[in-house]
C-alpha cells in the first residue's frame, strides 16, 4: 500500500451547516431574472388588472348606482385573484421554466450540490423565486386592493360581516402561488431545455383546462374541475369568496386533497430529478 505524504496545515473551513441556506440561491436567481427588461415589463403589466379594479372601486364609491351592475364585495376579490392566477401562470413560464432545466443542462447543479447545501435547500431556493414572484402578483395587489377598498368604502368593507375577505385573499394567494410554483419547478426539472419546460408547463395547464371545460360541457358535473390544476385553483377561489359558478362549486376538501396530491407528486419528481447529472450511454 502506498504511504501518503502528510503535512500539517490548519484548515479554516467551518463545521456545521447554517440555518438559512437557500436564500443565496433565491437571491441570485431573482437578480438574474429581474435583470431582463422584458420580464420587468411583463411583471408591471401583471398589475394592470389591479389598476382596473382600483378604478372600479373608486367609480362605485363615487357613483353608488353603479354598484347594482358591478357590486363591490368579496366576489370582486375572487374574480381578481382568478385573473391573477392566469397571469401568474404566464409569469411563471418566463421565470420558472429554466430554473432547474438550465442547471441540469449546463451542469451548474453539480456546483450547487458541491456546496454545504442539501438538495432540499436547492429546491427551496428555486421554489422561493417563483413563490416570491407569484405572491407579488397575487398577494401584494390583493391585499393592497383590500386596504384601498377599506379606505374608499369603509361603510361596505369595514363591517365584521365581510372581515373574512382579508384572510381569504391571503389563503387564495398562497394556494395559487404555491401550486403554480411547485408544478412549474417540477416540470422544469424534467427537461434540460427551458423552452421545452415552458411549453410543457403551458401545455399541461392549458390542455387540462380545455379538457375540464370539455368534460363539463359533456357531463355538467363540477367534479370535472378536479382534472385541471387551474380548475382546482379556481374552485378554491369559488369556495373562499362565495362566487356563483356551478362548474367550479365543489366541497373544499376535494379540491384541497387534489391540490395536496398534485403538490406532493411534484415534490417527488423534484426529489428524484435534483441530483448529480449522469449521462448513461
Amino acid at each position, binding site marked *: 500500500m502506498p504511504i501518503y505524504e502528510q503535512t500539517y496545515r490548519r484548515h479554516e473551513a467551518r463545521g456545521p451547516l447554517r440555518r438559512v441556506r437557500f436564500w443565496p440561491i433565491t437571491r441570485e436567481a431573482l437578480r438574474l431574472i429581474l435583470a431582463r427588461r422584458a420580464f420587468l415589463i411583463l411583471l408591471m403589466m401583471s398589475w394592470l388588472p389591479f389598476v382596473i379594479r382600483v378604478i372600479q372601486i373608486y367609480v362605485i364609491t363615487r357613483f353608488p348606482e353603479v354598484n347594482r351592475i358591478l357590486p363591490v364585495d368579496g366576489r370582486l376579490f375572487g374574480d381578481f385573484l382568478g385573473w391573477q392566477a392566469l397571469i401568474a401562470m404566464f409569469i411563471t413560464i418566463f421565470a420558472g421554466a429554466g430554473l432547474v432545466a438550465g442547471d441540469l443542462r449546463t451542469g451548474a447543479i453539480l456546483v450547487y450540490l458541491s456546496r454545504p447545501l442539501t438538495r432540499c435547500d436547492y429546491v427551496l431556493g428555486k421554489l422561493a423565486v417563483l413563490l416570491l414572484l407569484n405572491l407579488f402578483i397575487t398577494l401584494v395587489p390583493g391585499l393592497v386592493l383590500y386596504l384601498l377598498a377599506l379606505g374608499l368604502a369603509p361603510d361596505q368593507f369595514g363591517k365584521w360581516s365581510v372581515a373574512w375577505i382579508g384572510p381569504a385573499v391571503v389563503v387564495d394567494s398562497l394556494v395559487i402561488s404555491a401550486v403554480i410554483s411547485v408544478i412549474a419547478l417540477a416540470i422544469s426539472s424534467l427537461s434540460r431545455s427551458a423552452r421545452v419546460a415552458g411549453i410543457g408547463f403551458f401545455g399541461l395547464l392549458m390542455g387540462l383546462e380545455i379538457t375540464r371545460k370539455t368534460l363539463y360541457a359533456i357531463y355538467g358535473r363540477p367534479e370535472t374541475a378536479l382534472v385541471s390544476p387551474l380548475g382546482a385553483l379556481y374552485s378554491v377561489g369559488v369556495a373562499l369568496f362565495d362566487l356563483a359558478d356551478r362548474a367550479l362549486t365543489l366541497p373544499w376538501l376535494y379540491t384541497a386533497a387534489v391540490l395536496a396530491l398534485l403538490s406532493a407528486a411534484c415534490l417527488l419528481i423534484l426529489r428524484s430529478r435534483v441530483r*448529480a447529472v449522469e449521462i448513461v450511454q
Partner: protein
Amino acid sequence: MSATLEFVRASRWYGQVIALNDVTTTIGPGVTGLLGPNGAGKSTFLKLASGQLAPSQGEVKMLGRAAWGSPELFHRVGVCPEADAFWEQLTGLEFVTGLLRLTGYDEAERRQRAENALHEVALLDAKDRKIGGYSKGMRQRVKMAQALAHDPEVLLLDEPVSGMDPVNRRRMVDLVRRLGRAGRTVVVSSHILHEVEAMTRRVLLIHNGRILAEGDVREIRDLMDEHPHTVALRARDPRALARVVVAMPHVISLTFGAEGEWVTVQTARPDELYGNLAEAAESAGVSEMYSPDENLESVFRYLVAG
C-alpha cells in the same frame, strides 16, 4: 496512513447499466490521478466521492463520514466539475463570490477569498470580465478558483486541464502539484495519461466501472508480469548487444531502431534482463537505457488491452 476518501465495495448502477462496479480503494493526502477512457466511470467515481450520487451498494466515506447525505462536508471539500457552460452572464469575481455566499462567508471575506483564489489561478486581471467572454482555459481556471476559494482539505477535479493551452496547462499542473505538496488530498480525473503523469505518480486506473490497478506507476508495471516489458538500449555496437540479448531465455523479441543505435528488447523478466546486461553493456558500449513501460500510456494500454 490516514485515508481521506474510502470506497468499500461501492457500486453504482443506472437501471441495467453499471457505472461503477464493486470498487474498494482508499485515497489519502497528496495528488491521486484517476485514469480511464471516456465512459470508464471516472465521473461517477467523483460524484460518489463528492456525495452527489448515492452508492447503489457499498460505502463511500469522505473524511470519515458517509459522503452521501453529509452536506456539511462541503465546508472541507472543493469540487471542480467538468462542465463549464454555466453563469455566463456573471463576471469571474461574481461567480466565485456568489458561490462563497452559499458557503456562508460575509461580504468582506467573500471578496477577499475570491480574489485570493482568482490570484492563485492567475485570473485576477480578468476578474471583472463576464465568464461568457472567457476562453476555455480561463473557464477551467475560474472553476478551479471556486473550488479553492473556501480553502478545502480535499479537492475533486474532473478533467481540470481539458481544453487548456500548453502555458495554462503547465500552470494548472504546477498548481495541482503544489496543492498536493501542501497536504491536501487532490483527486484528478483525466483520460489523457500524460497530463496525470505530470501531476502525480500515484494513479488509479478505471475501466468499465472497475478499478484495474492502483498505486505508483512502477508498482502497476510490476503487477503486470504476464505482459512483456519493453527496454530500449542505445549502444555503440548494437549488433554485438543483440547477439548477447537474443540468447537470453526470457527475451521475447528484439528490434533495431531506425537510427541504428537503438535496440528495443521485449522480455518477460525485466529484472533478469537488467542483471544479465552488465557484461554485455560494457562490451557493446551501452550508453543509454530506459523503459518506455514506465510511461502511463503504456501501462494503461497494457491493462485495458489485457
